[in-house]
C-alpha cells in the first residue's frame, strides 16, 4: 500500500508542473502580455501612458525573459507568496485565506450531501428495478442532470424572497463567528449543488449496482441464506463503490467550476466570486494564482481518489 501511495504521489508531480506551464503560457504568450491586454480592452477606465506601462511592466517583472518570469513565479508560489492585486494591492494570499474556507466547505459538504441523497436512492432504484420508485428516480436524474445548478439557486432565491421575504445574507461570516448566520449563507449553495451531484451519483450507483447484482458471488450470498440487506449492502454495494468513487472525483472538478456560478447566484463571497471579479478586471496576477489553486485542488482530489481505490479494492494496489 505504501509503495502504491508513493507511486501515485510521484506521478502527480509532472502533472502539477504541466499545470503551471499551461497557466503561464495561457496568461502570457497568447495575446502578447497581460498589460497589453489591459490596454486593448475597450471601455477601460484607466489608460496607462507609455512610461507608466514601462514602469508597471518592470514592477511586475514582465520585462524579463519568459523563463526568468516563470522561475520567479514558481519561486514565489513555493515560498507561499501568491502576489498581489494589480488594482488594489491587497495580497492574494490573504484573499485566499479569507475566502477559501467557505468555498472549500461548500464543495466538501456538497459531496457529503450528494452521497447521502444519491447512494441510497441509487441502491433502492437498482434493487427494486422497474418499480415506480425506479421510474421516479430515473425521471429525477434526467431532470437534475439538465438543470444548471446556478439557475436552481436563482429559482430558490426568487422563491424565498417572494414567499417569505427572506434572502440569504450577502456578507462573509466565518463559521466560528456566528454559526447560524454562516449556515444561512452556505446552506443554499450546498443544497443546490448537492442535488445536481446527487443525480449523477444516483445514476452511477444504480447502474453499478445493477451490474454487480448479476454477479455469481451475489447469487451465492443469496443462496446461502443471507438477508437481502446484507447481500445488497455488504456484498453488492462494496463492489459497486469503485465507479461511484471515480465519478465523485471527476464530478468534483465540475463542482469546482460550477460552484463559481453558484457562488455568484447566491452572492456568496467565496473564491469563485474573487476569480470572476479578477477576470472582469483583468487582474492577471490574481487570475493566474487562483486558477493555479483550482488546478492544484483538482489534481490533489484526483490523487485522493486514486489512493482510495487502493483502499477499497486491494487488487488495484498490486497492478
Amino acid at each position, binding site marked *: 500500500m505504501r509503495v502504491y501511495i508513493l507511486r501515485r504521489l510521484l506521478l502527480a508531480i509532472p502533472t502539477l508542473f*504541466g*499545470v503551471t506551464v499551461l497557466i503561464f503560457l495561457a496568461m502570457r504568450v497568447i495575446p502578447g502580455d497581460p498589460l497589453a491586454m489591459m490596454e486593448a480592452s475597450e471601455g477601460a477606465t484607466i489608460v496607462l501612458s507609455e512610461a507608466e506601462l514601462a514602469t508597471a511592466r518592470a514592477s511586475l517583472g514582465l520585462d524579463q525573459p519568459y523563463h526568468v518570469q516563470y522561475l520567479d513565479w514558481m519561486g514565489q508560489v513555493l515560498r507561499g507568496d501568491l502576489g498581489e492585486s494589480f488594482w488594489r494591492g491587497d495580497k492574494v494570499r490573504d484573499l485566499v485565506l479569507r475566502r477559501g474556507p467557505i468555498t472549500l466547505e461548500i464543495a466538501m459538504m456538497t459531496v457529503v450531501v450528494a452521497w447521502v441523497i444519491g447512494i441510497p436512492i441509487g441502491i433502492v432504484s437498482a434493487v427494486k428495478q422497474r418499480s415506480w420508485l425506479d421510474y421516479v428516480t430515473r425521471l429525477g436524474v434526467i431532470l437534475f442532470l439538465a438543470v444548471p445548478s446556478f439557475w436552481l439557486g436563482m429559482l430558490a432565491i426568487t422563491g424565498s424572497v417572494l414567499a417569505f421575504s427572506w434572502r440569504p445574507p450577502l456578507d462573509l461570516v466565518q463559521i466560528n463567528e456566528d454559526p447560524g448566520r454562516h449556515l444561512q449563507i452556505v446552506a443554499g449553495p450546498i443544497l443546490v449543488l448537492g442535488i445536481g451531484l446527487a443525480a449523477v451519483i444516483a445514476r452511477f450507483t444504480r447502474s453499478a449496482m445493477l451490474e454487480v447484482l448479476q454477479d455469481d458471488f451475489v447469487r451465492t450470498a443469496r443462496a446461502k441464506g443471507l438477508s437481502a440487506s446484507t447481500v445488497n449492502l455488504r456484498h453488492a454495494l462494496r463492489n459497486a463503490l469503485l465507479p461511484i468513487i471515480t465519478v465523485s472525483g471527476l464530478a468534483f472538478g465540475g463542482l469546482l467550476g460550477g460552484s463559481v*456560478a453558484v457562488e455568484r447566484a447566491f452572492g456568496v463571497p467565496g473564491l469563485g466570486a474573487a476569480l470572476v471579479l479578477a477576470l472582469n478586471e483583468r487582474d492577471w496576477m490574481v487570475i493566474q494564482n487562483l486558477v493555479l489553486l483550482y488546478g492544484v485542488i483538482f489534481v490533489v482530489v484526483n490523487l485522493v481518489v486514486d489512493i482510495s481505490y487502493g483502499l477499497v479494492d486491494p487488487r488495484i494496489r498490486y497492478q
Partner: protein
Amino acid sequence: MSEPRATANLGAAGPRLAEVVAPPSPGQRAGRTGRQFWRSSPVGIVSLLLLLGAMVIALLADRIAPYDPLAADFIAISQPPTAEHLLGTDQLGRDVLSRIMYGTRLTLLIAVAAVAIGDGIGFVWGLVAGYAGGKFDLISLRLLDLMMAFPALILAMLLLAGLGSGIVTVTIAIAVTRIPGTTRVVRAIVLSTKEMAFVDAARAIGVAPIRMLARHIAPQCVAPMLVLASLNLGTAIFAEAALSFLGVGTPPPAPTWGSMLGGVLAGAFRPPWWLVLAPGLAITITIMAANLLGDALRDFLDPRLRSQLQ
C-alpha cells in the same frame, strides 16, 4: 410504407423484380433507420424534434420575434408578462420573448460550433494517436491528462482570460474543454479496432495508412461520435450559459440565455421572476433534449457503448 415483398412479385412481374431486388436508395434507407429509431426510442425522436424546433426558432428569429431584442423601451421597464410582452420585459424594457428567440440563435450557434470544433479536433487527434501509437501517442496522453487536470469551466475561464471575451473566443474556449474526452474515447476505439481481423486483412493486401484510417477505422467511430456530439452539445450549452451568466462569456448587448440571467437578481427589491424563469427553462429543456437524444442514440446504435459513454 411496408417493406417490399419479394415473394409476392416473383415470376410473372418481370420488370418489377429489378425494382424489388434493387438496393434501397439512400433516402429509403434513411427512412427505414428513422422508423427503427422511432420504434426503439420515442423519447429520442421527441428530443430530436425539440432540438430541431430550437434550430428553427434560431434560424427564423428575425422573422418571428415580435420586437427588436436590443430596443430599450423606457416606458415599459421590468414588466411582468402581459398581452403585449408575453414573457415580460427586462430592466431596460427589452422584450424577453424576442431576446429568448435571438438568444436561441446565439446560444446554439456557439454550442454547435464549439462541439463541431472540439469534437472534430478530438476525432482526428484520437484517430492518429490511436493508430500511430508510440511516442506521439504517449505525448498526446500526457497533454490530454494536462487538459483534464483543470475543471472544464476553470480551463475555459483561463483561456478567456488570455483571449479576451467575445463570441469567437467563448466558442474556442468551450471547444478546447471538449477535446480531451472525445480524443480519449476515439483513441480507445481505434486501439481495439486495430486488433480486428478485417484490419489485418486490409493491411495484408497493402492498404496505405491514410486509406486505412479513412475507410476502415474511422467508420467504426461514427456511432460513438454521434453520441458524444449529442452529449457534448448539452455540456456546451451549460458552459456557455455559466460563462455568460458570470459576465466573462458573450459580451452584451447581444443576448444569450446565460447572459440574460446575469445580474437579474442584483439589487431588485422584488425579484423579477419572469426574467429568471424564461431563460433558465430554455437552457434546461435544450440540455435535457440533448442528453436524452445522446442516451437514445447510444442505446440504438450500440448498447455496448453504455459503459464507455455514460
